């Protein structure tokens, strides 16, 4: 994923309380782990069924309870926080850009989470934070 290798990692990127995953065809899925139950928001580069969204130029933005949460551009594979004040993530072929940081060619192995991104910064390799819902499709 973005030239990074994640081995024995449950969640490659945890963006706030959202798991970002990439399937074997390179498509991005995002699962919200905020509530008691995990909720699939983006399924393979497209809005997941039953999730409210609005089309924007170059993609769509996910809405929850009438609020814009974040937008996703499937071409550049960029996730931009709207009401979520989190650094933008771009999953490129040669690396993962998180805000102004470029991570490439790294390997994370044996952690619950590969890369943790929150309002305060970025951490590589961390246990699964407490209180997250279990990852399900």
């Amino acid at each position, binding site marked *: 994923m973005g030239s990074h290798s994640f081995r024995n990692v449950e969640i490659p990127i945890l963006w706030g309380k959202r798991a970002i995953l990439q399937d074997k065809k390179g498509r991005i899925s995002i699962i919200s782990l905020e509530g008691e139950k995990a909720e699939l928001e983006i399924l393979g580069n497209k809005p997941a069924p039953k999730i409210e969204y609005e089309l924007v130029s*170059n993609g769509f933005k996910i809405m929850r309870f009438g609020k814009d949460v974040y937008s996703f551009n499937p071409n550049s594979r960029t996730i931009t926080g709207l009401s979520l004040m989190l650094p*933008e993530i771009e999953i490129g072929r040669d690396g993962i850009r998180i805000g*102004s940081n470029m991570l490439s060619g790294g390997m994370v192995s044996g952690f619950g989470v590969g890369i943790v991104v929150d309002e305060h910064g970025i951490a590589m390799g961390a246990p699964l934070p407490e209180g997250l819902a279990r990852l399900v499709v």
Partner: protein
Amino acid sequence: MKIIFNSDLLFATYLVEDRLPKAIFEFLQACGEKGHEICIPETTLLEFNRKQAEFVEKEIRNLRRARDLLDKYEVKFDDFDGSALISDPNLSALIQDAGVTCTIVPPTLEDFRNAHRKACSREAPHPPDIKSDEMRDLVIWEIALRIAGSENCAILMSRDELHTHHRGDQEASDCGLIRCDSFERAYELLSIETESGRVIRQLIATVIGELIAGDDLPLRDGAQLVSIERPVFFDTDMGTTFVSAESKFSTGTGTELTATISIEYAGTSVFSIKFEDAKEGDSEIENFSRDIAEQAVSTADVVDRKRDLSELIGE
């Protein structure tokens, strides 16, 4: 129209070097083309500068580390001053680069006094359940009210709870201040077509003939979609998409029809359309629903995406 920005909608998570983030830049460009003006309260400017200064410092630190590393391995290079290479972005210039007029608006003493009073006495628009007395937001609020009052109308672009809370409704209404929490809502207000509006317009174009031919809606020859607001889409497991939105049509008879429309479609094929809460002028129109075509969609794409994700997380 003057458009005032809070810092949350100018938010960038990286050092802005030569261009503002795409969504902001495109919105400013559209505003410039329509002759609107951007007002940046000085408070917003200071908040933007503070955040950008953190990124500038980080870049300078990175350059120092790079120099130390080169020194360590005795790599020869021309000496450089990192702080001279990276400059603070100029927000006003970045906005004007999009072809729109931009003014930095300093707060007046009156703005400060009003904000101070409202913060201390927790007057509206302060939401009752917020602990922090956010002076910065109140100063921006006062500037926005002042601009709207002098122009009879202005837009405040902000997602901040203090700016969007219903306790500010009366004050905003008295001054003609319209609050927008997203670029899409602002596009609609300024009659600039959004991506969602463009898609819905295309869908309506495929069925407008059939709607005109029927007697259920007061749409006649020449009827057309005038505006689309607040669209919400969701996809189904069956491979179709539902979209609902507030719509306005010119009826072709000199009147206007407003309604909440719901369309089920896939690609450019419309399967059904509903008109609810419809009104022609002051007259209410009965809810209307019509199946346009048989659903002929495939669930293969949804199934494929789900299967690949399930494999990934080992379900």
